[in-house]
């Protein structure tokens, strides 16, 4: 019997004797009506020992292209930033990853202090007053922020956003708003890939505006202007931001934003095909009690020592049930821990330099695409760490498969998310990329023969 069970046959006999049962089956029969009990074993693969299973998993893992085996220029909301070894070392301590939500504060000060430090760091990078202890991911955090705004701004039901916001984030918003009393307005981005159109869309019915800055195309938005307009109309402003970008750019709080959300994957969390990730959320003080998710706060113990506890729990579903602020009752402590360690290591200077690397190297890549015959830049103007490229040959999927086969994850095809961009792909450049990587990217992309690309596309 593979696995982790403890009881020997003699243990089982002794335990049954103490219970006064003949068998476990007898106990089960007393609980589960025989009519609904399974009459056959589960149809699952046979038990696998560690050695055999690991060897199988190694083969399975080796069959995937990855940012370890390939040079990565993919972004679109998840980025190949460098993760210092210290982050893994800390997060792999059993005391962190095998503990649970800190219900018993006296034996959870480690996690609680980390949550408090995380919240402080999030305040520092957002320039806002209050952070929660994290949400599921950047996408659902954006939607939670909208729900929070809808609950805060009474009797308004309109939510305005732009198609320069991550398409998946907008999909989530649609799914959540489907059954509740809310109207979603999506303003198209301008030729230059930014969302000035929002300014015209804001009206007295508007509960909130959701913008992304830097946006899905890597472009910078006029957040302050939009925030001013929204506030004038009595609406709240939510910004989805890139935590790395604030090494150089003004923070959401500095731009007048009410609620900031972000995908925290970039802060020391691995890509792992999309999750688990880290939903960052911070807001102004007066929205504090509308905030979803766990929050750790400072207090004192009976001896007068400073300590930390979960707090503001009256917002939560344990107590408020259907009147809760949100149904979320977990947070991503382990990923928040990783972000906390990551930001502790980087410090202000490290965050700034990381942002600088992104900007400078992304610009180097842009220049190469601009100089290329086959490709063109879709948007002019400054970007942070990614940008949209058009393939004049048109078959982006085949082009990118060609690159993958040659060791380069060249970018994110945006066609599947937005058909109007079907001949385009996003190229992201992090601090990890080198001059040699850029050489390789261009060489591989320019070597993709248009006809071969088309042929490949038909077979895929």
């Amino acid at each position, binding site marked *: 019997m593979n696995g982790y*069970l403890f009881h020997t046959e003699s243990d089982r006999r002794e*335990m049954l004797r103490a*219970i006064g049962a003949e068998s476990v089956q007898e106990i089960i029969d007393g609980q*589960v009506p025989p*009519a*609904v009990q399974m009459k056959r*074993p589960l*149809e*699952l693969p046979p038990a*696998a020992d560690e050695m055999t*299973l*690991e060897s199988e*998993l190694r083969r*399975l893992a080796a069959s995937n*292209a990855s940012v*370890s085996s390939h040079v990565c220029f993919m972004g679109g909301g998840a980025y*190949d930033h460098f993760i210092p070894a210290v982050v893994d*070392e*800390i997060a792999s301590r*059993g005391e962190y*990853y095998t503990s649970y*939500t*800190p219900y018993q504060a*006296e*034996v959870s*000060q480690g996690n609680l202090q980390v949550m408090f*430090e995380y919240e402080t760091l999030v305040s*520092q*990078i957002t320039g806002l007053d209050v952070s929660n202890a994290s949400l599921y991911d950047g996408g*659902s955090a954006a939607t939670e922020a909208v729900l929070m705004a809808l609950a805060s701004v009474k009797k308004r039901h309109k939510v305005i956003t732009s198609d320069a916001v991550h398409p*998946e984030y907008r999909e989530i918003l*649609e*799914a*959540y708003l489907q059954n*509740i009393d809310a109207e979603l307005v999506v303003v198209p981005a301008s030729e230059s890939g930014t969302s000035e159109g929002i300014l015209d869309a804001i009206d007295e019915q508007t509960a909130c505006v959701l913008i992304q800055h830097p946006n899905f195309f890597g472009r910078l938005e006029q957040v302050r202007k939009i925030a001013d307009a929204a506030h004038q109309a009595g609406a709240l402003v939510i910004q989805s931001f890139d935590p790395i970008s604030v090494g150089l*750019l003004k923070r959401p709080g500095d731009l007048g934003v009410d609620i900031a959300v972000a995908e925290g994957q970039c802060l020391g969390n691995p890509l*792992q*095909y*999309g*999750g*688990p*990730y880290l939903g960052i959320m911070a807001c102004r003080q007066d929205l*504090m009690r509308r905030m979803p998710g766990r929050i750790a706060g400072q*207090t004192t*113990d*009976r001896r007068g*020592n400073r*300590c930390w506890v979960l707090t503001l729990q009256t917002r939560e*579903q344990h107590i408020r049930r*259907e009147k809760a602020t*949100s*149904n979320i*009752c*977990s947070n991503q*402590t*382990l990923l928040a821990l990783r972000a906390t360690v990551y930001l502790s*290591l980087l410090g202000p200077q490290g965050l700034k330099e990381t942002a600088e690397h992104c900007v400078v190297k992304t610009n*180097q890549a842009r220049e190469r695409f601009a100089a290329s015959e086959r490709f063109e830049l879709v948007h002019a103007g400054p970007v942070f760490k990614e940008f949209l490229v058009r393939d004049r040959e048109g078959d982006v999927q085949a082009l990118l*498969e060609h690159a993958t086969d040659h060791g380069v994850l060249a970018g*994110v095809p945006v066609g599947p998310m937005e058909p109007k961009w079907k001949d385009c792909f996003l190229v992201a450049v992090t601090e990890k990329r080198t001059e040699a990587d850029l050489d390789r990217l261009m060489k591989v992309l320019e070597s993709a023969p248009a006809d071969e690309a088309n042929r490949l596309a038909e077979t895929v």
Partner: protein
Amino acid sequence: QATKLLFEMSRSGRRAHHLPPLPAEGETAASLLPADQLADAPPPLPELAEGDVVRHFVNLSTLNMSVDTHFYPLGSCTMKYNPKRNERMASLPGLVDVHPLQSDRSVPGVLQMLYELQQMIGEIAGLPGVSLQPAAGAHGELTALLVAAAYYRDRGEDQRRYVLTADSAHGTNPASAQMAGFSTRTVKSNAQGLVDLDDLKSKLDDKTAVFMLTNPNTLGLFDSQIKEITDLVHEAGALIYLDGANMNAILGITRPGDFGADLMHFNPHKTFSGPHGGGGPGAGPICVRDFLADYLPGPVVEKVGEEFRTVDPAKTIGRVRSFFGNVGVLARAYIYIRTYGKEGLRRVSEDAVLGANYLLSKVRHILDVPHGDRCMHEFVASAKKLKKEKHLSAMDLAKRLLDFGFHAPTVYFPLVVEEAVMVEPTETESKETLDAFAEALFRITEESGDVVEHAPHSTNISRPDDVIAARKPILRWTEKDK
């Protein structure tokens, strides 16, 4: 003694992280960005050396109790052993370093694993439609309710606006219903701690969308009326949602699909060995009947010939989070299920039930156990008598257990039991540990009230003041605290 905060250790100019210099020639980052977008300075993060950071977080970790260090019988949370092989395999670069937007063709191994996991949990649930996307149990509840809403909309039954939840249910049930746009009605428990059938009947009508059921319920009891319940609900044209929090009790013994559930979520971080990560990440994959599968969020993985593809179901509700889902968590569940395999999973539940009943057989001589002398994988005792006789609360008991080297059980839940003490030992604790726990519980009930009331005595801090924390919230460190 309180520990210094990172911010209090900061010293201007200290550094832990270094990047290679950017080329001296060429444009600077600042020159490439509009001046009005630039911050005057980077955020005021703490400045630390690497040795500081490591020592800080290593020492902090030791202030936590965890499954790796202590028995953690937290009811409803299934704090079982978190296998180290799961961590190692799930951390292989070919799994952990994969970008979420890579083409299907470039991630055959990931998709095969996810496809097989869909099949496996569908089989365990007895419900063939599977979405791995939800990020947590509560997220799974919400997602399933969005699926149910879409289904009714599609059938023109928009009038079904009520979700029924049991009074013993997790608070997430009514909260999720609310978020999905439903109104909720509470169904009472009867004296045995099971669903009160008369109350259920009285609340079922053609406005009922879903009855959200936890079975085994939060008292650790399998509802013996399950067929009546599901028949009643189905006769009313409504759906049964199963809160899968307690699946660790019934793996291979009975399947939600077989006892009438139409939708359910799993908590892989509970049932399939977590880990819990200090509160997350978890995952909340959902399984549904075939007629609901088309409404699931996308993407799901399909097998076409020998190839695996991600596709969106035909009438999908859309998506409930970015990208595929919590793949890292799901990978651990996959490894766990493969480890036990067809032979083992039933044994997991049997040992979980055996352990809980064994502990119950000891505890019921120490505390009241209002709902019988048998249970599934957990049971709920009551400290009511202790309260009356010694003015000690369930909370006092919980705190004093910490001094004995045990994490506390869940207390004050479910709400239907006074001074509830909810104990879930799981299958990965030895008889010796269960004996020691019962012994500690007994000793505490014999101790002087004063000792218990001021517990814990041996932990890093004594009881914190929760009231002040909530009344005058301090939610971050500020410069003035320095």
